[in-house]
């Protein structure tokens, strides 16, 4: 009764089972260019199930289940099934990953060096990484940066970018319409469309890079650049990591090495053109 979909994203493979065919068809379209899990064995299993037998057919309501579950996860409507699948996959990584230190950050790479951007929802880190991915950088991911504690390297997790509200129109100025997935209106996170990463980002999703610069962007403010002291960077990154405490001493060492190894700047920007210019300038100065 479960319709199945599997996909490999960066170093992690997923299996998604769904009681309905809609979410699986949407995933197949969005992830058409991605490979399947190596060995045909996924790292994580996700299930989209009706909250009750009745709600499979009547006002279908999707419960997010899987290897790792939140007891109080809010069900979504079937129309937002794709979003449910994406959230469920993120949840598995956030709660289950133990090899890599996870940072809630977007990342792009150039010449083997990686730019990390982290900030709260609405900071613009997703949109910036997607834009840079269209302008000569290799897009590595908009959700999680995977830091390998033993080497300090950043590994890609190039999922389709979830663009919210005004970011969709902004992105359409830079990419063709066929790169975007279906529009989901009125989700808990606003209106959402997914952007398929460039082909190169998917082809090279096994290639890591060395972190070289960390930015804390904030959208909607007057242009400003401030250095961030290592102590503050450390604390902010512990908050941006979903598995820092679970990794124990390895997590602490990975994070202190990262913080001591790369420069960090907070940037405020009123529009994307300013942000892109700032990134170019700071990259030239520090990376």
């Amino acid at each position, binding site marked *: 009764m*479960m319709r199945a979909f599997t996909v490999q994203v960066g170093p992690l*493979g997923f*299996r998604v*089972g769904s009681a309905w065919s809609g979410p699986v068809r949407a995933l197949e379209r969005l992830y058409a260019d991605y490979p399947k*899990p*190596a*060995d*045909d*064995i*996924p*790292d994580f*299993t996700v*299930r989209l*199930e009706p909250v009750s037998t009745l709600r499979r057919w009547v006002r279908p309501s999707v419960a997010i*289940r*899987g*290897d790792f579950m939140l007891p109080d996860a809010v069900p979504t409507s079937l129309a937002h099934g794709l979003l449910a699948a994406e959230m469920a996959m993120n949840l598995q990584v956030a709660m*289950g*990953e*133990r*090899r890599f230190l996870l940072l809630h950050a977007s990342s792009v790479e150039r010449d083997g060096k990686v730019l990390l951007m982290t900030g709260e929802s609405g900071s613009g880190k997703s949109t910036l990484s997607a834009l840079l991915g269209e302008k000569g950088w290799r897009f590595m991911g908009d959700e999680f940066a995977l830091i390998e504690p033993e080497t300090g390297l950043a590994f890609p997790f190039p999922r389709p970018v979830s663009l919210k509200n005004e970011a969709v129109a902004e992105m359409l100025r830079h990419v063709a319409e066929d790169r975007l997935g279906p529009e989901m209106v009125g989700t808990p996170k606003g209106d959402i469309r997914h952007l398929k990463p460039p082909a190169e980002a998917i082809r090279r999703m096994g290639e890591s890079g060395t972190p070289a610069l960390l930015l804390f962007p904030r959208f909607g403010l007057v242009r400003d650049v401030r250095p961030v002291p290592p102590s503050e960077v450390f604390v902010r990154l512990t908050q941006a990591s979903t598995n820092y405490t*679970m*990794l*124990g001493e390895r997590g602490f060492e990975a994070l202190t090495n990262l913080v001591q190894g790369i420069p960090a700047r907070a940037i405020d920007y009123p529009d994307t053109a300013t942000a892109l210019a700032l990134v170019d300038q700071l990259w030239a100065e520090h990376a």
Partner: protein
Amino acid sequence: MRDARILAWVLADPTRAAQLRPHQWTAMLTIAQAERLLGTLAHRLAGLEMPETAARVLDRARRAAETDRRQALWEAEMARQALVSLGLPVILLKGTAFLAVGMDAGRGRLVGDLDILVPRDRMDDAEAALLLAGWEWVKQDAYDDAYYRDHMHELPPLIHKARDRMIDVHHTILPLTARAQPDAAALIADAVDLGNGLSVLYPEDMVIHAVLHLFADGDLSGGLRNLWDIDRMLREFAERDGFWDRLLARSRHHKVTRYVSRALRLTHHIFETPVDGYLAWQGRRGDLFYTGRLLARNGWGQETAKLLRFAFYIRSHWIRMPPFMLGRHLFTKWRKGHQSIR
């Protein structure tokens, strides 16, 4: 994959993993995760040839179990420090005990809460000492609180405000309202001192506690893991002379022979545990229902056999309380549920 048998089959003999096809690996790993046995499976399969992805999944589980082990033992030490002034033995129960002794049952095992046993007449002192050391009540209402104190075998759960870990302080190993009533004084009198201020139950009592936890106190949720604990203990302790005779004598002393007997039959059937024939054939049949319930999970990690699960849920209440009390309890809970909706 219809049920969790594939996991039990490989846990019993890890070399069988060499025969698995990819979809069977996937099913087994998913079921193991859902049954909280993935870390255990990782330890059982360590060093064997397997697909790279399976090794990665198991490596993740091994790391998780190692973190959990360290936290569980630290939590035991914190409890010891909190209670040291009372001059009590802090008797560790369940998972933390397996880890503290270094038993096979502890290898790769996840430990949730810290469970300890203290004499009933010292419960108030233990409670006061823990509150002083930073544990606090998990928020609950007056009915639940009173229910715990009057009828349960433990204090209402406490959680440490800084470390966010729960402690269950027991004075015996089954609710006071349950049909079976083991001899709590004997459990405490015969506990084994580990020499570091912590104690564990006498080996045969450890087995009996695991058995009662599985069959006499709950609806068999997570039962496969509890049965695995029993399998490991039986195999480890059976190497000592006279173990089966002592287990029989001790089961009779606590008046729980039929539960122990059933556990022996089921772990023999599911995990191929060598068991004592005489002890295994005491008491009643009906094992098929138990086997079905313990293995009720499919390759997607979903719970199956809904009706059987529900029957065991009903049973869990039936065996924990006399009928009149059960009626009153369910009525109170129903009314509360009703009120909270309004």
